């Protein structure tokens, strides 16, 4: 008989738990500009080094560095800064509204604003987005009225989704923003289908999709990568690695064993890993991926390395599972602050202008909130007609649903 040592089961554990001192010293902070920029027709295999590295453009000195400098004009940067500020302000107001009992639920994207906002800037406005619940910055950047976002959150009489969806599950075809599902990951492979359809029609619109680190464990992630690789779909597959999935750290999704970007390589999909708090780096990698898609070179996988600054949603308290103040220790800073400092370093912006911007945005968001609340908040009774509850299950209402509506007397 063989004399085998007993096996043992490995359960991944995060380095730190509540009570521990925040510490990110295990993360190697690469200097901005260090990572090479390959040609867009690179093979997947030849992006391997980048998939294990980190594309960074904005340096400690607030200046741009290296081959990934996207050469963005100042107007675009200022618009980006504004959209990030709107996003953060909006989040704060709506979080508070939930705490005040005006709605049931809210989710912030604090610390991750650069991802959606910068990518919205890098994509064409007609390009299609399949987001998760943390890309509200896309809608804001594309000019969707924030008052309508609030109407949705309040499920009020002006709610574009007629009170049907949980707060923040927006949908706007007009803004190229696919209806958000509560079910994680499903949309990721749907996005590939949209991209295939666009290619099938000889259209020139490409598609982008987002998924969280935790959600990459769903089969849909694999499905998306497989179908995208096989049909060379013009799609940008983003993984937002914000280190957490509710209370589970990214090691529970396999992040201790590899990077999420590296997943792409094995499927034959070129993959980039980017500092998710660096507006310019995100812009650059997104443009690169979009160029690939437009040139019929197929999909790109982008891992955005960032940190979820707040709790998962209004339903949890992050201090129960991770050290308090950990967010402040994140070695890649805050995306708004970094872009602001870059603009100041360029001589195109000032702290005073920033203060004015924040004030203006605050007023704008408050005004929108006032308007939205005039149309009702959850439980206020100001609702779409109850009849609408029975509509849109099918295009035409079948007899049994009609009977149920009648039974309800509406």
């Amino acid at each position, binding site marked *: 008989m063989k004399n085998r040592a007993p096996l043992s089961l490995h359960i991944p554990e995060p380095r730190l738990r509540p009570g521990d001192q925040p510490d990110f010293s295990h993360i190697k902070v690469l200097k901005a500009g260090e990572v090479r920029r390959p040609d867009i027709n690179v093979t997947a295999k030849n992006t391997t080094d980048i998939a294990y590295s980190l594309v960074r453009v904005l340096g400690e000195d607030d200046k741009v560095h290296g081959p990934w400098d996207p050469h963005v004009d100042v107007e675009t940067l200022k618009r980006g800064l504004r959209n990030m500020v709107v996003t953060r302000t909006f989040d704060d107001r709506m979080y508070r509204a939930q705490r005040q009992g005006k709605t049931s639920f809210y989710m912030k994207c604090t610390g991750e604003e650069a991802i959606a906002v910068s990518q919205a800037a890098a994509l064409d406005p007609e390009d299609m987005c399949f987001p998760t619940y943390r890309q509200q910055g896309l809608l804001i950047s594309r000019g969707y009225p924030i008052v309508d976002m609030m109407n949705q959150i309040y499920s009020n009489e002006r709610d574009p989704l007629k009170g049907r969806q949980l707060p923040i599950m927006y949908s706007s075809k007009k803004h190229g923003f696919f209806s958000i599902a509560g079910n994680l990951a499903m949309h990721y492979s749907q996005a590939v289908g949209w991209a295939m359809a666009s290619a099938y029609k000889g259209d020139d619109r490409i598609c982008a999709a987002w998924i969280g680190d935790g959600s990459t464990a769903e089969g849909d992630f694999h499905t998306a990568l*497989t179908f995208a690789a096989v049909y060379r779909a013009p799609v940008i597959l983003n993984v937002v690695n914000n280190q957490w999935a509710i209370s589970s750290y990214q090691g529970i999704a396999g992040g201790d064993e590899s990077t999420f970007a590296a997943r792409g390589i094995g499927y034959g999909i070129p993959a980039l890993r980017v500092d998710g708090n660096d507006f310019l780096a995100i812009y650059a990698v997104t443009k690169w991926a979009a160029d690939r898609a437009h040139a019929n070179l197929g999909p790109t996988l982008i891992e955005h390395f960032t940190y979820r600054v707040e709790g998962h949603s209004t339903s949890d308290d992050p201090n129960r599972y991770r050290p308090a103040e950990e967010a402040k220790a994140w070695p890649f800073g805050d995306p708004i602050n970094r872009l602001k400092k870059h603009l100041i370093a360029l001589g195109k912006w000032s702290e005073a202008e920033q203060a004015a911007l924040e004030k203006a945005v605050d007023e704008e968001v408050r005004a929108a909130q006032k308007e939205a609340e005039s149309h009702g908040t959850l439980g206020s009774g100001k609702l779409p007609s109850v009849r609408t509850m029975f509509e849109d299950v099918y295009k035409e209402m079948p007899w049994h649903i009609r009977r149920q509506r009648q039974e309800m007397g509406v």
Partner: protein
Amino acid sequence: MATMNMIQALNSAMDVMLTKNPDVLIFGEDVGFFGGVFRATDGLQKKHGVQRCFDSPIGEAGIVATAIGMGAYGLRPVIEIQFADYIYPAYDQLVSAAARLRYRSAGDFSAPITLRSPYGGGIFGGQTHSQSPEALFTHVCGLKTVIPSNPYDAKGLLISAIEDDDPVMFFEPKRIYNGPFDGHHDRAVTPWSKHPASDVPDTYYTVPLGKAAIVREGSDLTVLSYGTMVHVSLAAALEAGIDAEIVDLRTLMPVDIETITQSIEKTGRCVIVHEATRTSGYGAELSALVQENCFYHLEAPIERVAGWDTPYPHAFEWQYFPGPGRVADAMRRVMEA
């Protein structure tokens, strides 16, 4: 007009729709060059091009997911799941996405996809090539479910399904692809060419969703059935010498409640026949509906004849299959009650 079996009729429906509408495309496992394991897409790739009819990876979730994305774009994909038994990996995409998209987006997006899949037993396929999962879809609001029983209906219903703006589950009773099997597995198979429903126009036509067909008028009792079991029920009625009115539901969701109630009000007796396992099968819903809508007309308990509540066993195919003997027994019991 041509003489077609089910496979040819289905193939013709897809051919017609590929020709008529450039937004229609077909994909699924082995459906492209090979033409599908049951040959339903035979020749379509050659005729319409590789982009209109192509192979997919073996990933049912991906087939449905990408179809949903295409539907959201504006296409009308027709997808094949090789066997209904392999539909479950796609269940989440069907239930949580296809069925919900229109509602949750308040009409902003929809998924006008048609999912074709061979289902049912009788071909010695064992437990993973014989299942009848329709009830797992009739419970899901937002999905339509269609099951044809003959070539004429198959083509007309499939065209309606493709043109329908909602997601349609289109289950094809594989046992009757080549002929109207009545459950007498020990007798020679009749080909479709001997059946009037094999007269199928080559061109475009539709059979509407949501409308049942009375395939035999009768006054003794009403049989509610669909797919292969329509033929089994016909045989059983004949053999039992019972003047049964046989309703071929054709669409299970939304079901044609008017035809059902009119028939039961006339006969006062009801036998429900399906091949799927009995418990919580679609027969349960039919039984509940009949009871609710026709309680005062019922002269006997409604009987359900269905597959046993076991997996479909390879060697016991004919002990499992609810054949004409079992259906006839149920008819007699209902008549004697």
